């Protein structure tokens, strides 16, 4: 399986650099002292990352003229720019005082930046994610809807190079049971590591305090035990270490069936 997460030297006059991440086909080339980037969403997911496809005339290029004039570009995986709502494989009830670990696989975005200046040229989603609303009709936040499910184990799921494995600990400190069907996963504080030839995020710890209270969320930045630290491919979008308290589990959108008109 070809590794696309590395630095590339893009020279003028050469044929475009080409790679695939998920269903996204990307071409990069140097022309007229500018960096040109094009991408296309393919109909079918590729068998491997090193796919090859026709670069037709109709494709539209984005162009950058940059003062550094550098030809070295870094291609790195990053988390999407909005939180992700993840649903459980099956509805799960977590009793009071219980702590469980689940895993989720999130499709990455491809970040194309100059290797020497970290100037970001473009970020492209590997696959199109549909958007969803987490909250009430009055307030809430826009999120992406994850196409993958949260699971207790990753053993039976095939690893894909454009999916990052996210280990999540959930602790129920409320007096009542936590009926876990879906939750809002705030990925902005997670970096991406490469370990054991897969993409991994640091552990997230969510402590549930009850239906009407916010959950405490902290990102440890450490990979699960049994894995080495690996190589840090990308830092978090929002690298804040302190824990945050936000609504994570509750979904209050129950007037959809009430209104007749």
């Amino acid at each position, binding site marked *: 399986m070809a590794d696309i997460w590395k630095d590339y030297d893009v020279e003028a006059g050469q044929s475009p650099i080409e790679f695939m991440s998920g269903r996204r086909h990307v071409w990069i080339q140097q022309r007229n002292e500018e960096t040109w980037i094009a991408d296309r969403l393919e109909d079918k997911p590729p068998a491997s990352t090193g796919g090859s496809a026709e670069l037709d005339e109709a494709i539209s290029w984005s162009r950058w003229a940059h003062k550094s004039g550098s030809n070295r570009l870094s291609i790195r995986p990053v988390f999407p720019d909005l939180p992700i*709502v993840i649903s459980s494989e099956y509805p799960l009830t977590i009793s009071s005082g219980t702590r469980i670990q689940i895993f989720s696989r999130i499709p990455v975005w491809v970040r194309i930046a100059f290797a020497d200046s970290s100037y970001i040229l473009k970020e492209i989603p590997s696959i*199109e994610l*549909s*958007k*969803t*609303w*987490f909250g009430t*009709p*009055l*307030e*809430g936040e*826009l999120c992406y*809807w994850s196409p993958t499910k949260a699971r207790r184990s990753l053993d039976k799921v095939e690893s894909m190079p454009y999916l990052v494995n996210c280990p999540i600990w959930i602790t129920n400190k409320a007096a009542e049971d936590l009926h876990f069907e879906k939750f809002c996963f705030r990925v902005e504080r997670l970096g991406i590591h490469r370990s054991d030839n897969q993409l991994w995020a640091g552990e997230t710890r969510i402590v549930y305090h009850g239906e009407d209270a916010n959950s405490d969320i902290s990102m440890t930045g450490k990979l699960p035990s049994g894995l080495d630290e690996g190589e840090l491919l990308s830092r978090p979008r929002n690298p804040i270490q302190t824990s945050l308290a936000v609504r994570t589990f509750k*979904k209050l*959108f129950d007037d*959809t*069936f009430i209104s007749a008109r």
Partner: protein
Amino acid sequence: MDSTSVSDLGLENFVSEEFWMLAIRVAIILALGFPILFMLRGWARSFFTKRYATHYGMLAGKIVFYTGLTILVVMVMGQLGLSLAPLLGAAGILGVALGFASQTSVSNIISGLFLIAEQPFKVDDIITVGNTTGIVMSIDMLSAKLRTFDNQFVRIPNETLIKTEVVNLTRFPIRRFDALVSVAYKEELGKVREVLMEVAEKNEYTLAEPEPQVIFNAFGASSIDLQLRVWGQSDEYLLLKNSIYEEVKKHLDEADIEIPFPHVSLYSGEATGAIPIEITKDNQQYAEDKSDLEE
């Protein structure tokens, strides 16, 4: 011809030194006061806009400006030796007279205060008042100003805004769009529902949650009427509306589901029987009659 200079006129005989000093003091007050006032207004506007919203920024700017202007006027009057007491007394009497004459304006001012307190909308919100829909540009003492989407300026008196129904289209971050879809009676509703849900799932502006719904509306005159209810972001509402209708048409066509047009069935007394036809002339007689007419 003799030339006459200013000094020859003997201005010092008409204008005293005291007057010059007074004029200079007033000029200094105005020269310093107005730039400071504009600076304070700009600061208040940007501070409250950044910290809260554009609406509060504009409001704070106006409060600072008019308060400062009042202080400047009072200071200038003080320099000119004009007492405020008789002026306020006169203003009281004048106020009563003006009050009767300008009831509408006063009503608008008071309505404006209610609008500020109640906040049914803010600057930059999109509202509908009567038949007018537009973006709120400002909420002032007497009126609110809107810019419609075809770029017209509309001034709506505050009193009207208090009295009539105002719909704020951007108050909440998400909105539901109900697409009306009609299909022929012969179509299988399960299949139609499946196609419509697929449209909703694949549309880029539709939110996955709240979940899209297909609601049975009515047995119409020529069709079964359904509603496809989808949610999207308020600022993408038009894109959602356009794309949903286009995709519904495309997918229904692909699935060979008929979108009927209004049609009327004629019956002659008996619903299932054919309409009886009576032939009153044979073909030969008809041809002869026709040729007679042509001659």
